[in-house]
């Protein structure tokens, strides 16, 4: 579910709010560019324009760094000694994998390569017997980190794409901490991390997009110092003979997941939200609830049944929502 950041016109904001008592003379600086195979937007609010610009430059550099390691070529694997971020992401991935009963799997590198390139739509459905054999082989060993580098097990090559983007926005937002910045919103293709406030003193607002109707917003989320990430079957997908093949691979079947059609997760840390949103595309609601409780996350998942879309929200999800635009069910 692509999440819209609701842009408020800068000039309008200046007229109505600038130099009010609470938020005297706050400015907003923004930038947008393409990195990590997606559109990145960074907005920063503060009193000093120069500092804001400096922050935006640092945060942009941060994305380029992540792209160089965890982009489509997975160059982090070639490091003679793994970068500490790679070690952290691998370990965190495995913790989340355990919490989600294996639904989040950071070792699908070869399997994803086998399917082809979901971004460009150049994919081919692998042979079913082959995939079945791969599933069995994957159970017989593990990829490990030893002496600072990966010892790879075949068909378990690390691919940190399901968590690295989340970590990149988390890091980008954290850079602001030491710079005296009033508020930050970092958006990487719908995965968003926010800190502080907008220039009008209000919280950042984020629209959750409807998975089958791009023009409709399901809910408006209002959060502070948190992240919201969404996974869905409506991005990076192709139709082959009427079947939708999307980029989230179910580690149990090695086919694109056939559970939820989108999953939005709100969590303190963006890398956790990113990984959980992937796992929640695969797990059923009960398992989602269990994993979310342990990590203190809230979630909204959408299921499609006979072309009707049903939204299910975790009990605390509504606390982060300022406005619901579509009916939903709260999980008891």
């Amino acid at each position: 579910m692509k999440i819209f950041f609701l842009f408020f016109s800068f000039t309008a904001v200046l007229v109505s709010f600038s130099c009010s008592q609470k938020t005297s003379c706050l400015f907003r600086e923004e930038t947008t560019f393409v990195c990590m195979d997606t559109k990145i937007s960074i907005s920063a609010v503060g009193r000093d324009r120069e500092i804001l610009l400096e922050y935006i430059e640092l945060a942009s550099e941060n994305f380029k760094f992540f792209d160089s390691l965890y982009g489509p070529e997975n160059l982090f694997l070639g490091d003679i000694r793994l970068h500490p971020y790679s070690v952290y992401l691998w370990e965190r991935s495995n913790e989340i994998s355990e919490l989600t009963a294996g639904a989040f799997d950071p070792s699908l590198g070869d399997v994803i390569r086998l399917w082809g390139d979901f971004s460009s739509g150049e994919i081919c459905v692998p042979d079913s017997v082959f995939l079945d054999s791969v599933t069995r082989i994957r159970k017989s060993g593990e990829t490990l980190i030893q002496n600072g580098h990966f010892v790879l097990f075949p068909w378990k090559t690390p691919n940190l794409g399901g968590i690295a983007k989340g970590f990149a926005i988390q890091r980008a937002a954290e850079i602001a901490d030491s710079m005296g910045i009033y508020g930050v919103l970092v958006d990487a293709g719908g995965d968003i991390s926010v800190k502080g406030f907008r220039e009008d003193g209000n919280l950042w607002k984020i629209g959750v997009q409807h998975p089958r109707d791009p023009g409709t917003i399901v809910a408006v989320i209002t959060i502070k110092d948190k992240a919201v990430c969404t996974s869905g079957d409506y991005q990076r997908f192709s139709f082959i003979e009427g079947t939708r093949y999307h980029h989230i691979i179910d580690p149990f079947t090695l086919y694109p997941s056939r559970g939820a059609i989108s999953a939005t997760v709100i969590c303190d840390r963006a890398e956790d939200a990113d990984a959980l949103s992937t796992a929640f595309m695969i797990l059923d609601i009960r398992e989602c609830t269990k994993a979310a409780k342990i990590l203190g996350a809230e979630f909204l998942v959408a299921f499609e049944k006979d072309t009707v879309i049903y939204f299910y929200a975790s009990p605390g999800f509504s606390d982060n929502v300022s406005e619901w635009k579509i009916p939903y069910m709260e999980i008891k």
Partner: protein
Amino acid sequence: MKKKAEFYEKLDNGSVKCLLCFHNCVIASGQKGFCGIRGNIDGDLYSLGYAETVSVSLDPIEKKPLYHFKPGSSILSIAPNGCNLDCPFCQNYSISQSFSPTMTLTPEEAGKLSRQKGSIGISYTYTEPFVWFEYLMDAGREVRKNGGYNVIVSNGVINPEPLARIAPLIDAANIDLKTFSAEKYRKVLGGDLDSVLRTIEFLKKNLVHVEVTTLVVTGFNDSAEEIKNAARFISSVDDEIPYHLSRYFPNYKFNAPPTDEKKLKVFYEEARKYLKFVFLGNLYDPEKSNTYCPDCGNLWIDRNSFKVTTTGIEEGRCSKCNRETGFLS
């Protein structure tokens, strides 16, 4: 040792139909199939040569030949006592076409041996490994558990389903493309060209490192046209697949003289028009055994007989123009 086979059908009269390769042999009770190591025991198909190897030896990987898979490494090589083709010029006929003494090497033993004495894994080679299907599955898993690679050197004649089952266990393969004529495959070799082409395509598509070899046999396939067709096919799969043209020597039922060296060099040039990496084998010509960067001509790997020196590759890239090599060095 024997083990119940996979991929067969029971027929009404106590016979079985083996579904491993295109022969689809119908085998009566007490009889063996074309390959000589899969047989019918009381209405069930068994792998009779399970874990029975005719040889255990440590070879340079270049001997397989695999030139773009861990160059300069050694690999433990084992082989079953059978083959599903009957090539009249077979260079290993004494172990592929007739009964040979074997020793037992259980999958567990194979796994342990695979990483000793500097071996990078196990190569199933010399004869036809696919007819050893059940052992390949079991030993392949053990080798993987020990962190080794599985390498097969095969004629590529196997049915799609067993191939799909075994392929995820294979890291690298050298497939023989003995001729580009379906008729010669059928009539002279007892084989099937379609199976071979399908195997090359399938393995490549499924991330296995593939190299292709043609044994250029005097009077059988030593025409520029054949080599051209083969090279064109390989390049249609991927023009970076290494293609080995090997010199033949009289053996088994063939007494034609060894392949003309001059002809081989002409074929080399012909194949180079379509492929980036072509090599001559069983022939002393260091220049045509070396690997050069296809973009800048930098010498990547220097091969002098089996003395292999990687000179122009740094961290998987050309040391001169930074082109990715695209293979495991």
